[in-house]
């Protein structure tokens, strides 16, 4: 009688009872209502508490469990280790009536660039915004023009064009909410995400 089959049998036994899919909800910073919905072919579970776990078997049964930070760290150390640093946000302002940045914002752009360069695989997203003077469509176009102007500045300073995105959000996200057709300098801006 050789002993070789036993480890294999043990593995088979483990495989037979191991859940096929396991979902773990992580803590949500500043989003207390965040949840995931886990749906198998025969059951549905909503995870809403940090470190709640749903284990789904091959046949579709779902079991709810609870884990904790240190167990997740042990089980998923390498997965957690590659998580990139949180994104950073900056706001730049334009001179009235065009796509030129104010002198202060031109200086701030240098800081944005250096932060993006020091991140591995760093990206810059330039999001243009307008005030509510003009139509939604014309403001979409204007905000995109402004974002593209900043994008060209960044590329002109040598940053990889493939990692700079220009986005026009038009008048959808005012800093200062106003009635339509109100001239508001604080809303004529570009938000920069460095990630």
């Amino acid at each position, binding site marked *: 009688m050789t002993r070789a089959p036993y480890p294999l049998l043990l593995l088979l036994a483990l495989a037979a009872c191991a859940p096929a899919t396991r979902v773990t909800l*992580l803590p949500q910073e500043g989003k207390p209502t965040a949840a995931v919905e886990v749906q198998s072919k025969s059951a549905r579970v909503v995870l809403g508490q940090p470190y709640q776990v749903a284990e789904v078997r091959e046949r579709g049964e779902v079991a709810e469990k609870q884990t904790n930070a240190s167990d997740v760290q042990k089980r998923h150390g390498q997965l957690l280790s590659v*998580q990139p640093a949180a994104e950073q946000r900056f706001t730049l302002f334009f001179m009235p009536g065009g796509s030129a940045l104010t002198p202060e914002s031109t200086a701030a752009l240098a800081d944005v660039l250096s932060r993006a360069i020091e991140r591995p695989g760093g990206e810059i997203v330039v999001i243009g915004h307008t005030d509510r003077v003009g139509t939604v469509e014309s403001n979409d176009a204007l905000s995109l023009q402004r974002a593209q102007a900043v994008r060209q500045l960044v590329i002109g300073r040598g940053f990889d064009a493939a990692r700079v995105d220009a986005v026009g959000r038009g008048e959808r996200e005012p800093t200062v909410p106003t009635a339509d057709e109100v001239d508001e300098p604080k809303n004529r801006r570009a938000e920069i995400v460095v990630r």
Partner: protein
Amino acid sequence: MSVFCLRSTAAVMLWCLGLACAPAVLAQQAAPPTAAAAAAREAGTDGRQGTFKAVQGDVTVVRGNVRTAALVAGGVQATDRIVTGPKSAASLTLRDGTVLSVGPDSVMDLSTFDFNATTQEGNVLVGLLRGSLRMATGLIAKVKPEQVKVTTPTTVIGVRGTDFIVEENP
């Protein structure tokens, strides 16, 4: 039996790796490029939908029949498959700010990704065939969480603005 079930299934994972996992190849239709994507390409981007932030060990991007080693700052497109070897992992950011991390011995498909940056609407569909995945959702989930899904062979995971881990033991 249930005592075993509480243990980490790493041994099973290694055992499974000995099997040739032949995932079904889905017929992939190229989505028509959006105006935004076309505009972005004209301006010198490469049509990427995501960017690698970290690559540890052996990480491969499978695009159609082409396999390339993943590189930090390299691009990811919709329908790419990401395969990690033992003791390997990678993370990437999608255009809407979604962060995906892929753990060791994993196979993950970015099955669908489209994003209109102006309206912040879009779709994310990620498939995990093996291994582990962490997803921290971005703008699409903020605006329309029902448009973000992670699937495994047994499960569909829907989100409500969330950071979570999925593991799959085929």
